[in-house]
């Protein structure tokens, strides 16, 4: 068990709290850097998708996990980013400029969506974002002169300073760099006053307001930042697939994103990436398990839906903090080894609160 005796504010907000953090995250970084040399092409592509979904998950995590505003239409932001990127790169814009534009445009759309969020909350907000997601998907499908409609639209490999990221290894490194930058940005945001304000809004809007937090400003900001991250992820997603159609940004994708962060662990940055790993590697696990199952079940297209539903139910019922929450418990067990007590993390029963009086 490690005890950190904090003697300064600097120490309190330091990103790597102790040597262990530096060691393990350094090891992780080394592993990620070495991955293209070690992994076959297919698994590298999967890892790239983990990074891309991780960035989108970070965005949604900021909104849902840290600000407490749930969005059921997040795939729309992904789509806005992907289509902006597709159009701008087709016009010959450099990658970084078009990526910033994709992020900015998504953020602008996010602000538009965030405005109703000032008036409605909880389930009404979820329904408003759901409606927004449907409308955006329909716009992608119908605005054929720009988006190519249901026929879809092709994307060129990204180019930075004349270097085209054509090989999957090069593209992986590009995604890795962007993912690291986004993660560091979010971590910094969370230890800054803005991030604290987000968490305060999540925990109690009323007390946040009474502490002088401007609810409207911070909620809109949260939507904008979240949408910007989703836009970046969408742009990378488009480049990875090289072909996008409106169906890729539908309600199922939105729910997948939400499922991803809930299973990963709401309210933790780790959770975004753990959830992305779950989302990407679960289908592989399921297809591996098909050999063990009788044919009629194993070959059924419903198996994946079923497993997702079951896993989601199990997590909400037994591990509301997700995979990351489970890891914290495992870590506590390892650290305390002979002294771990059952029920150390037992949550107190809370009475059912009425939303109508909130």
């Amino acid at each position: 068990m490690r005890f950190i005796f904090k003697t300064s504010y600097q120490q309190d907000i330091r990103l790597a709290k102790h040597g262990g953090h530096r060691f393990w995250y350094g090891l992780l970084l080394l592993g990620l850097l070495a991955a293209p040399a070690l992994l076959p092409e297919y698994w590298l592509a999967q890892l790239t998708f983990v990074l891309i979904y991780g960035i989108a998950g970070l965005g949604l995590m900021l909104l849902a996990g840290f600000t407490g505003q749930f969005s059921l239409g997040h795939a729309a932001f992904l789509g806005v980013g992907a289509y902006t990127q597709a159009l701008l790169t087709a016009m010959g814009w450099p990658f970084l400029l078009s990526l910033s534009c994709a992020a900015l445009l998504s953020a602008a759309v996010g602000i538009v969506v965030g405005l109703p969020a000032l008036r409605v909350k909880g389930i009404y907000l979820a329904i408003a974002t759901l409606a927004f997601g449907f409308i955006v998907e329909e716009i992608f499908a119908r605005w054929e002169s720009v988006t190519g409609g249901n026929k879809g639209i092709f994307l060129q490999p990204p180019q930075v300073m004349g270097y085209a990221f054509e090989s999957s290894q090069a593209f992986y490194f590009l995604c890795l760099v962007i993912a690291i930058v986004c993660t560091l940005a979010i971590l910094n945001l969370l230890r800054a006053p803005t991030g604290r304000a987000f968490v305060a809004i999540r925990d109690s809007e009323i007390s946040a307001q009474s502490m002088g937090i401007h609810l409207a400003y911070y909620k809109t900001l949260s939507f904008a930042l979240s949408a910007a991250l989703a836009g970046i992820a969408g742009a990378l997603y488009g480049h990875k697939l090289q072909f996008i159609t409106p169906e890729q940004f539908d309600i199922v994708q939105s729910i997948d994103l939400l499922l991803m962060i809930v299973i990963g662990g709401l309210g933790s940055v780790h959770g975004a990436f753990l959830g992305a790993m779950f989302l990407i590697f679960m289908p592989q696990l399921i297809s591996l398990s098909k050999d063990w199952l009788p044919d009629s079940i194993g070959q059924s297209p419903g198996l994946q839906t079923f497993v997702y539903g079951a896993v989601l139910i199990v997590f909400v019922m037994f591990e509301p903090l997700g995979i990351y929450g489970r890891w914290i418990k495992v870590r506590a067990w390892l650290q305390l080894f002979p002294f771990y007590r059952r029920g150390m993390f037992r949550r107190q029963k809370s009475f059912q609160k009425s939303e109508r009086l909130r």
Partner: protein
Amino acid sequence: MQFVQLLISGVAQGCIYGLIALGFVLIYKATEIVSFAQGEFMMVGAFIGVAAMSFLGFPFWLAVIAAMAAMGLLGLLLERVVIRPVLGQPAFSIVMLTIGIGYLLRGLVTMIPGMGTETHTLEVPYKDATLQWGSLVVGSEQIAVILTTVLLCALLFAMFRYTRLGVAMQAASQNQLAAYYMGIPVQRINGMVWALAGMVAAIAGLLLAPITFVHANMGFIGLKAFPAAVVGGFGSLPGAIVGGLVIGSIESLSGFYLPEGFKDVAAYVVVLIMLMVRPNGLFGERLVKKV
């Protein structure tokens, strides 16, 4: 004439939305949970109806009763096994739970060998008959939908007004703690509300079946019922039906008078406007925060 014709088909479609929205509202009013699985409940109900008719050879009316009974039991079971242990947790984790239930049910139905992945037709006795009335043509399916909805609403109204169970449900929905102190078994009431929602969903599924066929993804229509519930006011039973009618009519009219594509999003545009103008809906209760 054209207008009336469109309105009738809109009202018939709207009744379906209203019935699904009724399920949301029942559950929301009693337990403050928004069930995203209601569309899947409807789908499962329709599948049970089809299975009862084609495999067990039940006549139509018996199949309807079987589907309702099965869905009632499923509602009870889900409430007891899945929902009750997480009561009191943040509202959104329960919403995720119902999304999970929806996935689970859809996956389960798709996994039924030889049945889940196909599209079925429900052989209803009133199929293919049409009523001609001047230049108005009304399909018998649409009449059945409208009549059943009216009947069901009357029954629900009578139940909430005159039976002990209905009054207890109303009491529990207004203030669970007070109802509990008055000797109402609130948890059992919650189970019954879920059972009731399941039965209503089964009826909606069986009514929708002749119009759109029965397949594993028909539950997605449940997402169209959210606008209905919001327009009517999320906590209001008559509001659910009225909201459904409004959404159905707007959808039907916009499909004809507006350019292509507006039909699919009309409901969502309406709900966005509604949320901005009047978040409580047409019949919503306006509650003030008390300190």
